[in-house]
């Protein structure tokens, strides 16, 4: 068991030629925490994981595992186990040999090795495949072998790179719950990369949101690090707000009409005025801003909390049974709302929706969030 501390980490595959992949990453991952890395494809999640494992060196900055500086320690001595994005099973070995390979290399006592393999295989339901080669396994089974191979090493830090991405929906849910249980039982520090919002929100103690670096000279591509609900309710900036939550948050442009410490009046580009429970005391009337509204935070007009009204033109309505999504166009922008099932919405017709002041997020021209003074829950 160990904590992981990352201090001003920079990674550049080709310094001086290529642009940084990771810039000024600072993370303090406590012992036993389950941390999930999310971010768009190519933002450096795998790279950060590989840097922690020691498969790629760090351009600058420091990495500590269990209080020990690991910059120059080879992977095997870092006490990490990793499940690769590509599984990386040894194709010429049976499942049993795959699981036991590391123990054999490390000359772990045969009886102990056998027991650990048996334990992992029972836990992951691999007992009936032990003598098969990876070739003869399904994607899900291979995935479990990959997890098992890292498990038998009893790593202090468990690194998983999109381990469920190849499974079908049902198996995904099952393995996800399995992973959560495993983490509770073993309590090892776990770092997990995923594209899946649900995985991130359900598994994580804390989420790390990374963004791809562009040439705009951003100081860091670590956008936010915090518990899932903090990221949902109090995103640090527009990027995090747009990334966390599904369907994505809607954004409407406008400017501050009346700043305030509790409430803010905003005049939208569509001409409509809107009240938001946001502390905009660091802004001034006339500042350009963007209002963010989550699709699931809209209410019907007759709801007493419908402080504001947004009007749009219906593009498409999706009836999913348990809920209905209506895709609107508001002032030339897409605006998605989640409404009660079977709400009628005829394409090209006008559609009015209520937006509570407590449901609004507000971002300044640089994309930084104004503090919210309330959290909204629909029910």
């Amino acid at each position: 068991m160990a904590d992981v501390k990352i201090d001003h980490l920079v990674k550049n595959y080709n310094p001086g030629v290529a642009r940084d992949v990771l810039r000024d990453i600072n993370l303090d991952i406590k012992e036993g925490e389950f941390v999930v890395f999310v971010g768009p494809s190519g933002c450096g999640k795998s790279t950060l994981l590989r840097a922690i494992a020691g498969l790629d060196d760090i351009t600058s900055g420091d990495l500590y595992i269990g209080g020990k500086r690991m910059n120059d320690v080879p992977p095997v001595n870092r006490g990490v186990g990793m499940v690769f994005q590509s599984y990386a099973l040894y194709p010429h070995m049976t499942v049993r040999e795959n699981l036991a390979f590391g123990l054999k290399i490390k000359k772990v006592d045969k009886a102990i090795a056998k027991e650990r393999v048996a334990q992992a295989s029972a836990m992951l339901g691999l007992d009936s495949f032990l003598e098969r080669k990876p070739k003869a396994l399904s994607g899900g089974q291979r995935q479990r072998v990959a997890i098992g191979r890292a498990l038998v090493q009893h790593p202090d830090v468990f690194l998983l790179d999109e381990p469920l991405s190849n499974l079908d929906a049902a198996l995904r849910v099952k393995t996800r719950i399995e992973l959560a249980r495993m983490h509770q039982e073993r309590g090892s520090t776990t770092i997990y990369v995923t594209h899946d919002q649900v995985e991130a929100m359900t598994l994580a103690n804390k989420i790390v949101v990374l963004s791809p670096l562009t040439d705009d000279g951003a100081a860091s591509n670590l956008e936010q690090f915090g518990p899932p609900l903090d990221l949902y309710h109090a995103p640090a900036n527009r990027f995090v707000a747009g990334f966390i939550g599904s369907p994505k948050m809607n954004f409407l442009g406008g400017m501050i009409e009346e700043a305030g410490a509790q409430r803010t009046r905003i005049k939208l580009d569509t001409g409509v005025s809107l009240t938001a429970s946001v502390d905009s005391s660091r802004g001034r009337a006339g500042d350009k801003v963007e209002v963010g509204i989550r699709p699931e935070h809209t209410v019907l007009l007759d709801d007493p909390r419908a402080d504001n009204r947004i009007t749009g033109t219906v593009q498409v309505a999706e009836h999913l049974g348990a809920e209905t999504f209506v895709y609107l166009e508001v002032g030339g922008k897409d605006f998605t709302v989640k409404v009660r099932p079977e709400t009628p919405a005829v394409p090209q017709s006008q559609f009015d929706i209520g937006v509570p002041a407590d449901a609004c997020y507000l971002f300044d021209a640089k994309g930084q969030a104004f503090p919210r003074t309330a959290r909204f829950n629909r029910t």
Partner: protein
Amino acid sequence: MAMVESKSVIYRKLAAHAFLWFFLALIIFPLLMVIAISFRTGNFAVGDIIPSNPTLDHWRLALGMSIIDEAGRTIPPPFPVLLWLWNSVKVAVISAILIVALSTTCAYAFARLRFSGRSLLLKAMLIFQMFPAVLALVAYYALFSRITEYFPPLGLNTHPGLIFAYLGGIALHVWTIKGYFETIDKSLEESAMLDGASPWQAFRLILLPLSVPILAVVFILAFITAITEYPVASILLQDEAKLTLAVGSQYYLNPQEYKWGDFAAAAVMSGLPITLVFLLAQRWLVGGLTAGGVKG
């Protein structure tokens, strides 16, 4: 479960088959000729493909047995053909093994390690290899006679010397193996290293077992090259007892007397080890070794 095919595909298949048979005949015909010559009475290059009165005399001589000619004289075998064959096999096996070992480690470095001058070195190797060895014969001779002065066991007129000379020709093999290594996902070795393997262990326990087919190919190619190589061996080897079969069998052909029959028997014999090695190595020439290792 054959797919349903249209008529035109069937005709095309027939045409392809006919073409392949024709091609095969073209390749096999010279071999049949040589075999025929080796059984033909007298030393004639031309004649029927099925000898009219076949004889085993050429083979007896090649196998080291004396024969009795029409006049009743006993003719001892003129050359130690079996010894030459043994020399050839010895040189070919050892040099093929060493070539596989050298080019594999070399290819690993080129495929997996990053060092400066890597691509330059790779290209340079290939370009140097493009000059035929014949052009360098003088250089070979000069080099090895110099080596003889300092270290005779590796010098002129020795088998180790010849093997040493053959080890120079690995550039193509390095390229071949490097290409194969690059198709094997790097994460396999990374995973092994996380499991605690040293780079050498990752190479030996993961990469090598997965590369067996290409190693077999390189072994066969190196073996064939060494068995059939003539120019360098003819320069470096001098004693009759040390010759390889490729060099020695030329002794049958001198301007005074072309002993085509004896030569043919020796030539067929030199093909035997190649066939044998090929048959043995075939079980290693399997595909799909890396299947199932990585996603996608």
